[in-house]
């Protein structure tokens, strides 16, 4: 089931002062990057957890084998970490990271004497507007495919079991991409309630996912 609820969402308007304005996604990345640049390695782990799947989907357009895709993703993050002192936050972190990912994949293909698969013409800007769900080649191993399927099923089942207000809040956030303020307008409730509902929804889904993830072959961070 694909959820979408926000057909008549109002535009984002901040009525409160600048000091209480939420940081935004790019600003959150900027803060994490600055933490890493100040020597906080754990902050880099948060960026890895956030962008690893996006980067893997990008690289899987160039490299077919899923195990190789994972190696290139890992290598890309390590290169990004080494290059991070030179990153000045002039561009978005993920645009910069995607460029490193594409270059790492190209180098890997050259080293292994291979040509990129048909959809190689990837740059970071294109990658962001690219509809991955339609065009992405499915290169996963059977184990990975099974894991993906089980995670999807578990999340869907957990969503069905959620109270209506929690389900609406997380759908508006994750699928429609609304801000908390917009969700508050749509659901006619305070922003603090939105924040609480989204957290409770995630917590409930997470509780259903944990047994599955703990049994996964990849060690959890």
């Amino acid at each position, binding site marked *: 089931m694909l959820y979408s609820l926000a057909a008549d969402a109002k535009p984002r308007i901040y009525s409160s002062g600048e000091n209480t304005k939420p940081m935004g996604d790019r600003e959150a990345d900027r803060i994490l990057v600055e933490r890493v640049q100040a020597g906080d390695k754990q902050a880099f782990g948060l960026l890895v957890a956030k962008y690893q799947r996006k980067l893997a989907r990008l690289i899987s357009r160039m490299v077919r084998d899923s195990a190789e895709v994972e190696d290139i993703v890992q290598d890309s*993050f390590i290169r990004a970490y080494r290059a991070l002192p030179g990153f000045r936050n002039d561009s978005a972190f993920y645009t910069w990271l995607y460029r490193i990912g594409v270059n790492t994949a190209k180098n890997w293909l050259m080293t292994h004497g291979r040509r990129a698969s048909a959809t190689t013409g990837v740059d970071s800007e294109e990658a962001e507007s690219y509809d991955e769900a339609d065009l992405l080649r499915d290169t996963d191993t059977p184990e990975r495919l099974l894991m993906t399927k089980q995670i999807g099923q578990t999340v869907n089942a957990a969503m069905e079991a959620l109270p209506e207000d929690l389900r609406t809040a997380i759908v508006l956030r994750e699928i429609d991409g609304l801000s908390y303020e917009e969700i508050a307008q749509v659901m006619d409730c305070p922003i603090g309630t939105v924040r609480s509902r989204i957290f409770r929804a995630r917590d409930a889904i997470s509780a259903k996912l944990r047994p599955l993830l703990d049994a996964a072959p990849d060690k959890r961070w």
Partner: protein
Amino acid sequence: MKTRISALVDGELESHEIDEVLGAVRHNQEMRSQWCDCHLIGAALRRERGLGIDVTARVMSALETEPTVLAPKPRRANDWRRPALALAASAAGVSVVAWLTLSPGREASPLLAATPATGQRVVATVQSQSSPRLQEYLVAHQAYAPSGAMVGGARNIRTVSVSGEGR
């Protein structure tokens, strides 16, 4: 704290809350798992592929052997000071050069101009030294004077000038 991590995932955390949240993530494995779960749930709800991929632990393990990156802090608040200081230094330099070049009466020593009595005494002293014997000596030894170097030339010019005044 868990509510705040969820808000950070959405970029909806307020700036003053970030330190506490990152501190919790640094020391608490459960908080890190929550961060990872939140992103996984979002990807699953958007029906993205590759949900089974999780290289975070591998990357962080590999980074344990890497030296910690340290970047110089970018200057933000006082950025206007640098160009202002450079401009002021340039203006000061130009002013000094202009004063030295264009100021009237720079050829005469201001010290001598202000104290004419002392200046006369100097001239008188020099005149008394420029006796005919000394002049002969200087002319005879002019060939030995270092003519190529600026210092030697300047010495001779001063001597001739003094001799002229003496006549």
